[in-house]
């Protein structure tokens, strides 16, 4: 039953674009005047509808399945959970279906079922309590290829973050399927900055960072990115990004790490919650 719920969450993630993302896409469409930008946004909105109505993967790149598990240490369902995630990945690949995206780095051989060495990606976090929450984030290759890390100096600081993000987005142009969502992790070490950046993509559109100063920077970077004019699919327009999400961690006195994870317009996600009595809930 747990496997069923995870398969359902994967299905939801790849076939139904979350409501807040669809709303942002509709607003983008309303705000564009150029014919080319409208051609692309119209196709995007049509694809969203076809995916939802037919339970069809909206994008053929169903991504590398990435799971963030927040596991309550008292939950009786922890044992075998990683196995269930792998099993659900195999079943989802067959049943939905997904595109097999796990390739051996030495031979180039595709495993055929989206599993392999350290794949799907599972990030574990232990928590108090007896509930388990699993977030599913299918991450496409085109946008991930634009993700990057900058180890800034503390003197570059937040101004450096802004410059790094703008330069990277400008350089990537149409490649990551704009309008994009940007996840930015600041602080920690190199690993943590990127992990925070990816995790930031799970936040809903309306959800700003609770620290008002950081929320303000999110809004400013969003405006500056949209002023670049890259537009939908890199062919010009007002909407280059739908949203910017920042997460922070304390940093080493000598470091100012910035992780940038670029997400395509199909900012896909879904969640599974396993209650202490075994009931499961799947939502977006």
């Amino acid at each position, binding site marked *: 039953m747990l496997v069923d719920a995870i398969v359902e969450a994967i299905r939801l993630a790849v076939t139904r674009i979350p409501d807040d993302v669809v709303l942002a896409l509709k607003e983008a469409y309303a705000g564009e005047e150029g014919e080319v930008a409208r051609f692309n946004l119209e196709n995007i909105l049509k694809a969203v509808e076809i995916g939802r109505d037919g339970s069809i993967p909206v994008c*053929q790149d169903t991504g590398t399945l990435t799971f963030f598990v927040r596991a309550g240490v008292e939950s009786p369902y922890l044992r075998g959970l990683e196995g269930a995630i792998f099993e659900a990945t195999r079943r989802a690949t067959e049943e939905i279906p997904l595109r097999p995206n796990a390739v051996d780095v030495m031979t180039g051989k595709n495993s055929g079922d989206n599993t392999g060495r350290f794949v799907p990606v599972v990030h574990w976090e232990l928590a108090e309590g007896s509930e388990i929450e699993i977030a599913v984030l299918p991450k496409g290759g085109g946008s991930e290829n634009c993700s990057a890390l900058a180890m800034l100096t503390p003197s570059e600081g937040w101004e450096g973050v802004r410059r790094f993000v703008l330069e990277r987005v400008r350089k990537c142009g149409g490649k990551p399927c704009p309008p994009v969502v940007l996840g930015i992790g600041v602080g920690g070490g190199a690993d943590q900055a990127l992990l925070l950046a990816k995790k930031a993509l799970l936040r809903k559109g309306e959800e700003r960072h609770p620290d008002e100063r950081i929320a303000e920077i999110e809004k400013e970077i969003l405006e500056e990115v949209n002023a670049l004019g890259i537009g939908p699919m890199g*062919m010009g327009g007002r909407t280059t990004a739908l949203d910017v999400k920042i997460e922070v961690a304390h940093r080493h006195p000598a470091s100012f790490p910035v992780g940038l994870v670029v997400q395509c317009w199909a900012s896909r996600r879904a969640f599974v919650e396993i209650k202490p009595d075994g009931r499961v809930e799947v939502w977006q």
Partner: protein
Amino acid sequence: MAVRLKTPLSEADVLGLKAGDVVYLSGTIYTARDSAHRKILGLAGRGELPFELDGAVVYHCGPVVRKTGSGYEIVSAGPTTSARMNRYLGGILGLGVRGIIGKGGMSGEPFKGRAVYFAFTGGAGSLAAKSVKRVVDVLWMEELGIPEAVWVLEVEDFPLLVAIDAHGNSLYL
């Protein structure tokens, strides 16, 4: 301008197109990504390519497919990032390919005087699949896997945007 075209494309077909035109493409197209390009160019160099690419349209795409009784059905089939294939562009156009479908754009120079780059909206795979009528054939599936194999697809009125024309114009910034 909006026009209907059918594969194979002629020189006149592509020279008549301007960046910004909408083309409804019908006929046969060949998907190819990184590995397929390497393989195609290797085989063509030895005169062993098992299909003809003169006037052909190549689609940068790795589809989601479902196995049916007798073959395959295309479930979702949007474009992949074309820039990865820049290094093979001269070679593939040299085989007579007249059109490339993808997303994100490519180097414009190699298209001049002979071919065009069509953009379809990235991520809109469920919409693109509506234009695919059937899978004619699939090559090198065992060796390359589903995303990298060459899928020979019959399409009907596939709505594309001419993003780089044969006269040096491009819609990319």
